[in-house]
């Protein structure tokens, strides 16, 4: 499509390209737009959680109550979903939540780069969770952790089949965990880009796709927050399975 002239010249995937900030090839340590937007993620999260809560006021300011809201939200999620003894992992889960949330939200800024739309990034997050949780299960429960796959409430004849299914679904976890986030982000941005390209191609009727993009943007804002929530809550679910493997 690149060498076609005129018509729909929409390249929805260009926005996901990793480029070196100062030119040159992309090697493993080159500062790229990934670096920039990840740094901005850290800055945004720190502004909310550190600068926002700097007053330590008894009656919070707006920024402080937003920080407290985020804290209470994640804390309650960890406590409710993963159990009371999972609270010691709260800083890790909170870090994960903040990273995904702010990466998603910053990616919605026009011309921004969405770090969480890359499978490489989400796969590292998901496999980190997966490996940590699996290792934790074996460390805490030893061989009894395998009871997670042996559904003792099912009839005996069905148990081997169920064990195979459970095993497959267990190993599918990091894949669905990572692809869900990356796919949702990628899909939203690509669709927005396609609609924006329509606006250029339609000429006088440009306002139709612009309205569509506006509505889509609102939906994407919702999706960005929900995907961060879902990513975190699934981490909590996996953590609960590791801490309490018996069904």
């Amino acid at each position, binding site marked *: 499509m690149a060498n076609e002239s005129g018509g729909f010249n929409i390249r929805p995937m260009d926005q996901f390209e*990793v480029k070196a900030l100062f030119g040159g090839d*992309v090697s493993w340590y080159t500062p790229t737009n990934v670096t920039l937007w*990840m740094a901005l993620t*850290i800055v945004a999260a*720190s502004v909310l959680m550190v600068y926002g809560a700097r007053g330590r006021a008894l009656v919070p300011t707006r920024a402080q109550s937003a920080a*407290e809201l985020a*804290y209470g939200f994640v804390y309650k999620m960890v406590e409710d979903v993963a159990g009371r003894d999972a609270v010691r992992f709260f800083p890790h889960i909170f870090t994960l939540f903040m*990273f995904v949330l702010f990466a998603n939200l910053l990616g919605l800024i026009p011309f921004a780069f969405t770090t969480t739309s890359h499978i*490489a990034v989400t796969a590292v997050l998901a496999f980190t969770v997966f490996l940590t949780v699996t290792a934790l299960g074996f460390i805490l429960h030893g061989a009894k952790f395998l009871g997670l796959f042996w559904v003792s409430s099912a009839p005996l004849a069905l148990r081997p089949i169920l064990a195979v299914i459970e095993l497959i679904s267990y190993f599918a976890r990091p894949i669905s965990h990572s692809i869900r986030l990356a796919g949702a982000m990628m899909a939203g941005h690509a669709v927005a880009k396609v609609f924006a390209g329509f606006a250029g191609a339609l000429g006088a009727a440009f306002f139709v796709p612009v309205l569509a993009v506006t509505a889509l943007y609102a939906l994407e804002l919702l999706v960005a927050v929900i995907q961060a929530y879902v990513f975190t809550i699934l981490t909590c679910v996996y953590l609960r399975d590791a801490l309490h493997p018996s069904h």
Partner: protein
Amino acid sequence: MAEDAANGVGMPQLDLSTFSNQIFWLIVTLFVLYYVMSRIALPRVAAVLADRRGTITSDISAAEEYKLKAQEAEDAYHKARADARAEANRIVEAAKAEMQAQLDTEIAKADAEIAARTAESERRIRDIRDRSIEMVSEVSKDTAKEILTSFGAKADARSVNAAVEARLKGGL
């Protein structure tokens, strides 16, 4: 697009040459973010929340105390009111009784006075009647004597008196 795919830029997510870069910066980011969150942000927010919870708890207990005090004050007020009412009733009763007693003695005194005055009046009426009867007999005697004298008959005073008295007694 076919040549784009061949170059690996059709879908930048699948461009393996950038994976090491992304993974490296992601790990750096996660470590920095974890450090900032777990060392600075979370303890701070947790301290603020604990502080607030402590303040709220102490405020609630203080409020409980004040409520208790208010209850006590209200009880004391009710008791004082009941006492005052009882005292007032007692005073009213006493005043009533006193008034009754006073009234009784006054009435008795008045009765006695009335009785005395009635007796006095009756006595005086009786006196007046007695005197009038006496006067009638006197007048009758004198009249009889005068009549007799005028008739020329020498009247014996004693017999005239006796006759008049006899007539008066019979007539009256």
